């Protein structure tokens, strides 16, 4: 691409038209990111039921399937209200990330000899990698606890949340995998939970300083909360 020949303008009306622009993809990243952040937070809080014992966490698992009952059929709200919207949010998040990564790689022309980063942190520069690691982990995690694929979790018993998590997290390679994945998620959230404010233009000198604090606290709480369960299983506190 030369500096004198821009590609044709792509501005089209409608929400899809906005998404076609790079800024539009950033809005989509931020909005889907908010939804995914709310999910990981709720997931983390839900996990803590494991400390209450088998009955409570299994009951919590069943309660999620029974959400909306008796007004709605069993698992309907779980699918329509949570799983499908989450899958859509994830798909949008991943597609926007993929498209923007291609744009950004095309926009570059070689790297510098001895680049010195002054502001960009470890978390912001590894977003692509932590994102991919989290996505790969998600596939494992679903196979492990949701689908109960035998090669991933041989002792899986449908509905026995407590037994399943012990059976899986007792194995030290799986334990290590979960810790690493939560580290990646934590780094991703560390940057993402701040970045989303900038992308959406939520910027005001009155609260700007708190945006970074919010992201750090949020990432710490989510990662910390998540890792307590595998650590507790390894230490025998759960089990």
């Amino acid at each position, binding site marked *: 691409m030369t500096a004198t020949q821009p590609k044709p303008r792509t*501005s089209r009306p409608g929400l899809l*038209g906005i998404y076609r*622009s790079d*800024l539009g993809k950033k809005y989509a990243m931020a909005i889907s990111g908010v939804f995914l952040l709310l999910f990981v937070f709720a997931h983390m809080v839900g996990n803590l039921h494991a400390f209450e014992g088998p009955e409570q966490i299994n009951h919590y698992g069943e309660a999620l399937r029974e959400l909306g009952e008796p007004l709605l059929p069993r698992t309907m709200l779980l699918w329509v209200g949570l799983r499908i919207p989450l899958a859509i949010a994830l798909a949008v998040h991943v597609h926007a990330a993929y498209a923007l990564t291609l744009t950004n790689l095309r926009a*570059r022309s070689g790297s510098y*000899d001895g680049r010195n980063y002054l*502001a960009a942190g470890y978390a912001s520069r590894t977003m692509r990698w932590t994102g991919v690691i989290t996505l790969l982990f998600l596939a494992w995690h679903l196979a492990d606890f949701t689908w109960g694929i035998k090669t991933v979790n041989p002792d899986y018993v449908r509905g026995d949340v407590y037994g399943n998590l012990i059976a899986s997290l007792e194995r030290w390679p799986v334990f290590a995998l979960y810790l690493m994945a939560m580290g990646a998620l934590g780094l991703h959230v560390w940057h993402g939970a*701040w970045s989303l404010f900038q992308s959406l*233009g939520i910027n005001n000198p009155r609260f700007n300083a708190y945006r970074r604090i919010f992201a750090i606290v949020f990432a710490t709480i989510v990662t910390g909360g998540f890792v307590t369960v595998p650590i507790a299983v390894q230490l025998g506190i759960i089990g």
Partner: protein
Amino acid sequence: MNLTLRVWRQAGADAPGRFETYPAEGIPPEASFLEMLDIVNERLERNGAEPIAFDHDCREGICGSCGVMIDGVPHGPQLGTATCQLHMRRFDEGDTVVVEPWRAAGFPVVRDLMVDRSAFDRIIEAGGYISVSTGSAPDANEIPVPKDAADAAMDAAACIGCGACVAACPNSAAQLFTAAKLVHLNLLPQGQAERDRRTVAMVDTMESFFGSCTNHGECETACPKGISIDTIALMNRDYLKARLSDRRLLGRS
């Protein structure tokens, strides 16, 4: 002062480039970085070699012509100044200094350390102006501007268009430049009527040349005028607003 330079040499836009090492001996510490390059170039010419090509004009940090990557930092180790305001006393005796052109697909290398920054001109052409006649300088006071808006617009207007933001960005994004120009005009009363059209046109043009923002914050640190990434957030907000409302059809449906 005696230094060693590792300089990017490239004969032309399509020629392959490479690093060359040159001694820079007996450099006075009070020389600016560009004066140091002048001294090195004089010696190269005396020896019949091609001098190192670099852009420069005012040499007082207000024109935005100069700008090279020095030791992996745009405009070098002294923050808040352009390359011309960087003095050799900032370096230590015996240092090896790596000098490279801005690297971005939107800024193709013309020769050595010179890059073609006309992509910035395309962005300005798309909307970096106010169409109505605002009169001569004294008429500027005809429209009162609140002090805080005037200050914020002036801070953004400090952008000299040097391209350090693009050079610093790992995505080669021109967000800080475009946002500075947009905020400069969009905060002022004279800029309101064309605010939406300007924002969409400038952002779309920017996107046709450059990458997208991932909020690293490198640009803000590299900017010789200290323009804040707050301007990028304002641009993001304005673009969303502009795309959601369409003034062309306002009141005509």
